[in-house]
């Protein structure tokens, strides 16, 4: 317990993180939230504030309401604070500009655990139910996709099929789903010939759920790039990173996922020596890098989590300009105007901004155009588009407008939720451009091997 008495609500370590690991040191939640001195500098970068100009939807507001809850000064209690808390995108733009480096996203999550209960939200229940049964999940994704393809989605929504199936959130989800593979990435990767049992490898591929189940071609592109640059590697056969549990459900679930992945990593370590775990969904990768926070206060586990996190990389930071020099096809690079959307968990979560530009600038020249607010969230933010559709749509409209002003043909992003969200925005408002994952784009402009 810290220097100050705090509300018993936040004292349970089973339900809450013991410490937040912030860029300004490891802190208990009360200390972490008190670091906000209300200067307000976060507001102009917060997408929800920018579109609403309401303090209630600002990082400062969120910190203040959590602080008042902890101090017992906000009498109506956690539920009344829900509008502030549930609308946070967790994009991290605020922490990035904050002088005190207040970890607003993590603070909001700790408070949300009070308001939504622990894994009681409908989205969470649905996803976890599906995830626990991979076959059912696969079937649901394919079912949705086929329904949509057949033009029956709207009809089935009207008929209440999703409700009937006990999946109300899927009614929203199908709107964003434009592609789904009939064979998942996992199935494809597992078919590949494995490298020798004890080969020293430079990389191990971590398949994020979104890539695995929906954007299979992105995963294949990433693996191709890794092989080209770093030689042979192996698929990690990983568990879900646990982000969905961390954001929408219980810490226990998130810890369980993390621990499974840590054990997998440790097993691979004994066989393949020094390698990096590489992912291509920046949201998941950023979360993998933050595993230590899940185990803060538990010495032995914390150490293992730190060892794990220290060996995680985002594909966007592993490609250097010299790696692919001469490998690009000029005809393909000169065909399109390209703009980069900095996925939040890449730029705000991992500080990755310049790497992609350093690779693309020499290749694309003036065909690489910068959009305004490239590092502002697109409103996808995991399941946000499904839980806060109205706000999400307004943020998406702003993003799409910024994209359209560049007159780009291709938008590059590095998180799966950005891929889904921006794709839906482009389809509706700027159909002449399409969204691609960074890996997918790089592979698309490479020369065909002779």
């Amino acid at each position, binding site marked *: 317990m810290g220097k100050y008495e705090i509300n018993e609500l936040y004292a349970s370590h089973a339900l809450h993180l013991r410490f937040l690991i912030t860029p300004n040191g490891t802190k208990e939640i009360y200390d972490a939230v*008190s670091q906000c001195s209300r200067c307000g500098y976060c507001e102009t970068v917060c997408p929800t504030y920018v579109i609403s100009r309401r303090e209630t939807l600002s990082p400062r507001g969120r910190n203040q309401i959590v602080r008042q809850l902890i101090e017992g000064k906000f009498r109506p209690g956690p539920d009344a604070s829900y509008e502030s808390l549930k609308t946070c995108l967790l994009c991290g733009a605020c922490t990035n500009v904050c*002088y005190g480096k207040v970890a607003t996203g993590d603070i909001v999550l700790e408070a949300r655990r009070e308001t939504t209960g622990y894994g009681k939200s409908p989205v969470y229940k649905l996803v976890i139910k599906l995830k626990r049964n991979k076959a059912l999940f696969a079937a649901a994704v394919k079912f949705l996709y086929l329904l949509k393809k057949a033009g029956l989605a709207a009809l089935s929504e009207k008929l209440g099929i999703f409700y009937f199936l006990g999946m109300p959130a899927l009614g929203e989800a199908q709107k964003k789903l434009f592609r789904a593979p009939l064979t998942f990435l996992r199935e494809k990767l597992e078919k590949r010939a494995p490298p020798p049992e004890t080969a020293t490898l430079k990389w191990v591929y971590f398949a994020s759920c979104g890539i695995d189940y929906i954007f299979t071609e992105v995963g294949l592109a990433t693996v191709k790039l890794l092989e080209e640059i770093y030689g042979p590697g192996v698929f990690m056969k990983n568990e879900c990173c646990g982000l969905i549990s961390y954001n929408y459900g219980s810490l226990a679930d998130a810890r369980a996922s993390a621990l499974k992945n840590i054990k997998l990593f440790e097993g691979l370590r004994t066989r393949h020596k020094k390698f990096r775990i590489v992912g291509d969904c920046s949201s998941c990768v950023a979360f993998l890098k933050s595993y230590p926070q899940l185990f803060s206060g538990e010495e032995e586990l914390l150490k293992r989590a730190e060892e794990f996190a220290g060996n995680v990389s985002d594909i966007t930071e592993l490609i250097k300009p010299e790696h692919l020099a001469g490998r690009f096809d000029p005809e393909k690079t000169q065909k399109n105007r390209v703009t980069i959307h900095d996925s939040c968990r890449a730029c705000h979560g991992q500080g990755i901004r310049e790497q992609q530009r350093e690779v693309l600038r020499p290749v694309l020249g003036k065909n690489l155009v910068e959009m305004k607010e490239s590092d502002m969230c697109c409103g996808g933010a995991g399941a946000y588009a499904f839980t806060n559709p109205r706000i999400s749509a307004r943020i998406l409209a702003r993003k799409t407008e910024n994209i359209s002003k560049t007159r780009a043909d291709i938008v590059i992003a590095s998180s799966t939720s950005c891929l889904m969200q921006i794709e839906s925005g482009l389809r509706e408002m700027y159909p002449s451009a399409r969204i691609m994952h960074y890996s997918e784009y790089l592979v698309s402009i490479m020369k065909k091997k002779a």
Partner: protein
Amino acid sequence: MFKRKDLEGIREKLAEIVGEENVLTGELETALYSYDASMARAKPCGVAHFDSPEQIAPVVKLLYDNKIHFSPRAAGTNLSGGAVNLKGGFILNLARLDKIHQIDTRNGIAVVEPGVVNLALQEELEKFGFFYAPDPASQKVSTIGGNIAENAGGPQCLKYGVTSDNLLKLEVVLPDGSERTFSLDDPGFELMSLFPQSEGTLGIVKKAWLKILPIPKYIKTVAAHFPSIEDSILAVTGIIAEGIIPRSLEAMDKFSIQAALKGLERKIPEDTEALLLIELDSDDLETLEKELVRTGETLKKNRALRIETAKDEKEREFLWKIRKESYPALARMSPNVMVEDGAVPRPLLPRALKEIKEILNSYKLKAGLVFHAGDGNLHPNVIFDERDLEETRRVRKAGHEILKTCIKLGGTISGEHGVGVEKRAAMNWLYSQETLEIFRKIKAAFDPDNLLNPDKKIPVSKNQIPKLEREEPGLSDKAKDLLNEMKFRDKTGERTAISGSGSKLNPREIPGNCKILKTAGLDKVIDLDRENFTVTAEAGLKISELRDLLRREKLSVDIPEDLNGTLGGMIASREFRELRSLLLGADLALAGGDLIRLGGKTMKDVSGYDVLRMMIGSRGTLALILSVTLKIRAAGSQKRDFKRPGEAAQFGDLHLKIKQVFDPRNLLNPWIMQDKRIG
């Protein structure tokens, strides 16, 4: 204070104006509009969000007619409690009113709504090669509306002036919901002066016409290391004595520098105790290079240990980073940073800093000292944790001691952050009760029921807290005589025609019932401060005599060459627009013989209402000007062009209201503002 049930019906009417979704009275919204960036707290009863500036007036009228308190607010970054409503009324959120209506580079004007973020405007102007001079540290978030309310400054204001120096016209919604436009070209005395730094207590800015300037072609940035703060300040004085006016002149102490450099590779040499950041600009490279050489020589003469000149944009950015990182670095060290804000005459900065250090030590507090050295505005950044009540008490007390030190040295309690709630008590130490009474009456003239941003700026309690002893000149015998004479005439009800050198007053104009009061003999030069570059002289002094004196001293003042008469007459008759930037202080005699002292030798002062500049063009109808303090400069430094303002002859109804504040019986120059409402 009113009860929630009084709101019945109001909510619906508000919703009719701004829309149902924009009137929020729930627990969450009101909890989150109970604070700003200061320590002040007060829960409003509701928040109205505006989507159009046209909604302001009807909402204000509705609230005014129903006697409900309200406060305007935009980014809510106020450091003195200006953006909370102390009476539990409504918060009017102007943040969405962020349109830039016009950028007119030919005439140097930008027309904006109050919610435009300062930096957003700068970015827009940059596309055209222009900039807006006020650049407060908060410019990334703070809005033009807020900047006007506080009369914000910033590093650049040394050369280009604070917000009020860069305003051309304002569209304002007054507390009763009526809409008015004020501009520098208005007839009558300068009413527009009242709005900047009024902290949202007199009106709500609906639209502002701002002065914009072309970005100088060349900029040079220099960092100079000094063995002590004192040496750095002497160097500042030296530079200004050279006739060089840098675009900014920032200083900071070792603690701030070390904090800023923490985590960076560059370390600061052991012997550097203070750092000066000097930035020069010009459209002519040769002039700039020459100034740069002279600056370097002056720095060396004043014991600079090392001088670094930025060779490129990257180095310039690094030098600024040391300055700009000092606050963030402190913000990481502790949960809270109190950014104190006081100002003293520049040459007294070393004394002020010494005393401030002693105060901080005696209260066992840690602080970084950062200051706009060029204009004597200092910001001790005190770090603390507001959850520690005992420590917070010490911080508040130390803050008060620091303000008292500033007052004692002839300075002021706020250079740019405002009085708000947090410095109301300190107003008693700075101003006499008579002066505070004038401020109160001005507020009441606009807002008799105290509904708009109530209880800000002026002390609420009328306890006779004595004004502190302040380093300021005494009155001459002539001035005392005049005060006594005015007291006497006030008792007998005798009317007065004020006469200086007689150049402005047409004897035939003076009605027979007025007795002339001559300021002849009220002509002493009270103080010529060569280090501060100010002159204080009695109002009867002839401009020509001042000019001669300054010439002999190799100094100069920016008054048009062809202008004659007395200093008092120059102000009363409003001869040239730029006078407002020249004017730093004045002693006034009210009709009843009360003495009002405004401003002083500091370059910035946002403590009271800007009555000082409102006197411009008042033609002796408000008060007798006894003495004035003007900015001067080294002879030979660049000259200005002058603009003629509008005619001073006519007065409107608001002028009459202000007349009633100062001279309700119309005893002073009574023929000028004849109206049945005044005597």
